[in-house]
């Protein structure tokens, strides 16, 4: 179980690195799909079917939207990149030492904070249900739902879900506003 999850996670990390370094935006998006759908498999292995369903829908929608955006622009973008490469190189060389120093320092700080944060986590698979006990006790009778995740989402924490719906509404309004604005020169 742990080994399978580790292998999938390593593939996800490789896909992520490739997505960030791909020359073509379309192949970057396909590699982002590797990471997203790998996450779906991890959720299924971790016994979270609701999350897997939601993640597969969200990932597909995101990919479709991003491909639609990228298909307008890719060719243009490739030419731009080839032209910029030269001055980018000299800039890199002058600042190389400083950049390496900053990167190593930042990596050490982040790793130290990870050690601090994970010192109090339980080992994988040995989580105690201290908090969840109150929610699981007679949940079917209280909420009328056999799915505990649904019970928590729509009954115990219904206001959170209301807030989530508000955020979605705000995002839709924001997207419509941004896309329908008339610029000065456009």
């Amino acid at each position, binding site marked *: 179980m*742990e080994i399978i999850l580790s292998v999938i*996670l*390593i593939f*996800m*990390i490789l896909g*992520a690195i490739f*997505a*960030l370094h791909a020359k073509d*935006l379309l192949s*970057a*998006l396909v590699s*982002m799909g590797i*990471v*997203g759908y790998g*996450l779906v498999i*991890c*959720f299924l292995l*971790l*016994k979270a*079917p*609701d*999350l897997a369903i939601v993640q597969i829908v*969200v990932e597909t929608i*995101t990919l479709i*939207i991003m491909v639609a*955006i990228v298909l307008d*622009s890719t060719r*243009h*973008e490739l030419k731009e990149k080839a032209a*910029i490469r030269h001055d980018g190189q000299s800039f890199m060389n002058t600042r190389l030492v400083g950049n390496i120093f900053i990167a190593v320092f930042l*990596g050490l700080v*982040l790793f130290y904070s*990870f050690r601090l944060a*994970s010192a109090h*986590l*339980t*080992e*994988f*698979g040995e*989580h105690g*249900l201290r*908090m*969840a006990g109150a*929610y*699981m006790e*007679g949940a*079917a009778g209280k909420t009328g739902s*056999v*799915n*505990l*995740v649904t019970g*928590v*989402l729509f009954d115990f924490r219904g206001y959170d*879900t209301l807030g989530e719906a508000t*955020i979605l509404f705000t*995002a839709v309004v924001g*997207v419509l506003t*941004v896309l329908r604005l008339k*610029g000065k020169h*456009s």
Partner: protein
Amino acid sequence: MTLYLLCFLLFLVGLYGVLTRRNLIKIVIGLSFMEFSIFLLLVLIGYVKGGEAPILQPGMPATGFVDPLPQAMVLTAIVIGLATNAMLLAIAIRLYKKYGTFDIRKINQLKG
């Protein structure tokens, strides 16, 4: 602990992408990698060895499940992640229409 470390590595890859890439679309991709790693970490913490999916069945005792609380919270977080992604992409479309490129070095005439 290996799995937590791998999650942290995925987060670092996303952070690296956000900090070093010059393409707006790739910055959005890096942000979603950071989101993914956090989702996976929360669900990993809630896993109980040998546990079942938290769905009750008649005549079955309510024990031996994985923790349903992180799953419910991550479900909310995934949907909010979709909303932020849509917002970021809308802004990227606007910038592309105005400047004709996704390169953030060329998008330098923003007025306050």
